[in-house]
């Protein structure tokens, strides 16, 4: 027993030591992900190699933990947290959500038409998409209670039409890709009027859908935003399980398959990962030099952006399914490829969350004070008298959150494999293809990050 504990401790400390060495140098010289990227002062190939090596080493280290009891204990650990006045809290959150929606519409249309100082624009992008989203995976998802459309729709009658089951979650995949496309190609991030129009359109569409198919079906199946937060909530330490709020170790619920029951839902997870990459890729000079000849040859830029969005999603999905195919062969299992994709998709959510935090944490910290100032007088132009700037080492936090997301995903997939396969070596072998894909993916992402940021061209 003592020997075993010692060995575990040895594994843990060597892991830590390796992380410090592998991440440390890259982080110190690495690029910051948000807003302004710095040039990397070590050669780019070494920067990429270090990132890839950190992922590969994490897999090797995780594969040394082969004690099923330990893995199960980590993933099964739960504490019930009593929350007094939960009903009241839900009601208050619902009101806050509806107030926020009205605020965005009113201030978006009537407030100052300068995006960087309009409280509606700041509330949507800084308060909600950067700040609130981060709370859904760092703390717990409260979107169900906050969701203003759901609060309104639940007080309206419903036609209760039957939802075509064969569509599954695909409408939410299309919705997510559509929203990201809109975000990239339209000025929703700077023009308050445009943003308010989009929010109004989304509200009408969502309420009409909930009216037709019942709020339950609409927000659980079709609405992409609800699905994003529900999936991110899987990472969080707090969650509602069996009717009570429980505390768990962050990321450990990713080894359960609940939420992902078919290729449609696997598709949504992949889309969530892909859009973070797409977002960064269209802001690189490489993308501009690729797009230049096509646009000058007469291709409409909006179509080009859409095509790349769809092609990239298809590529990511295909690579993931191919990974499952190799995984099946290497593990020598009779589980279907479809079953493997369902089992190994949820761990990817940690990667998406890692990129989200890397992209938006700095943005949130610098912009939140501006949101607070402009929100005091939302209808008149109020230019803040201060600028918040982040210290130089902040880029290291971004880089660390990207790597941490990948490492969490590797661990969750490792735990899933041990749950799925009786053989310990079989479980380890099943992870080879995913690890290879992740190493390539990390290096690609770091390559995007290490490029200077430009405004997406032609839009």
């Amino acid at each position, binding site marked *: 027993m003592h020997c075993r504990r010692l060995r575990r401790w040895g594994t843990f400390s060597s892991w830590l030591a390796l992380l410090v060495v592998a991440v440390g140098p890259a982080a110190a010289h690495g690029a910051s992900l948000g807003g302004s990227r710095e040039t990397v002062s070590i*050669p780019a190939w070494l920067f990429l190699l270090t990132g890839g090596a950190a992922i590969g080493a994490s897999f090797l280290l995780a594969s040394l933990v082969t004690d099923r009891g330990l893995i199960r204990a980590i993933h099964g650990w739960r504490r019930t947290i009593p929350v007094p006045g939960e009903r009241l809290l839900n009601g208050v959150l619902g009101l806050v959500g509806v107030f926020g929606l009205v605020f965005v519409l009113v201030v978006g249309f009537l407030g100052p038409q300068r995006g960087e100082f309009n409280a509606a624009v700041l509330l949507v992008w800084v308060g909600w998409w950067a700040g609130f989203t981060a709370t859904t995976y760092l703390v717990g998802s409260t979107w169900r209670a906050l969701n203003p459309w759901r609060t309104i729709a639940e007080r309206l009658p419903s036609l209760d039409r039957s939802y075509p089951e064969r569509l599954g979650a695909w409408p939410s995949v299309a919705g997510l890709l559509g929203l990201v496309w809109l975000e990239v190609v339209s000025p929703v991030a700077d023009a308050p009027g445009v943003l308010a129009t989009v929010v109004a359109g989304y509200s009408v569409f969502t309420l009409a859908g909930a009216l037709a198919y019942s709020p339950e079906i609409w927000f659980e199946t079709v609405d992409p935003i609800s699905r994003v937060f529900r999936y991110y909530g899987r990472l969080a330490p707090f969650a509602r399980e069996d009717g009570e709020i429980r505390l768990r170790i962050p990321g450990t619920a990713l080894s359960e398959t609940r939420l992902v029951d078919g290729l449609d839902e696997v598709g949504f997870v992949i889309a969530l990962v892909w859009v973070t990459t797409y977002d960064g890729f269209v802001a690189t000079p490489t993308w501009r030099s690729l797009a230049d000849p096509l646009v000058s040859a007469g291709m409409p830029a909006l179509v080009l952006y859409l095509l790349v969005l769809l092609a990239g999603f298809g590529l990511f999905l295909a690579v993931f399914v191919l990974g499952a195919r190799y995984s099946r062969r290497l593990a020598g299992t*009779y589980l279907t490829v479809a*079953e493997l994709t369902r089992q190994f998709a949820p761990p990817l959510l940690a990667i998406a969350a890692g990129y989200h935090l890397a992209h938006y944490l700095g943005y949130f910290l610098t912009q939140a004070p501006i949101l607070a100032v402009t929100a005091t007088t939302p209808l008149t132009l109020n230019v803040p008298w201060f600028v918040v700037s982040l210290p130089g080492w902040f880029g290291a936090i971004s880089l660390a959150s990207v790597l941490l997301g990948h490492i969490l995903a590797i661990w969750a997939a490792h735990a899933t494999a041990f749950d799925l396969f009786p053989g310990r070596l079989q479980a380890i072998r099943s992870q080879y293809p995913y690890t290879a894909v992740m190493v390539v993916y990390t290096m690609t992402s770091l390559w995007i990050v290490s490029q200077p940021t430009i405004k997406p061209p032609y839009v």
Partner: protein
Amino acid sequence: MTTDRYNTPANAPIHRCEHCNRPFAEDELLSIHKGLDHAEQLDDEELAAFERAYDEETDELRRYQIIAVGAIVLLYFGLLLTYALI
């Protein structure tokens, strides 16, 4: 035979668990599966088969772990040297 979870090739060896019907490609994997998931339903012979298969796998795992630790050391010093030279 194709079901939602399992897909067994037509002319491949199938070792099916009599407790939960899950198919396996190797007898050893079936023994380990039964020992892990149906321990209380096994007779002495099956328990012995489980322990034998588990121990055999532990030996294989040991070999894998030596290679994995070697790879980690190689990565570590490889990167360390690269950083020293650049």
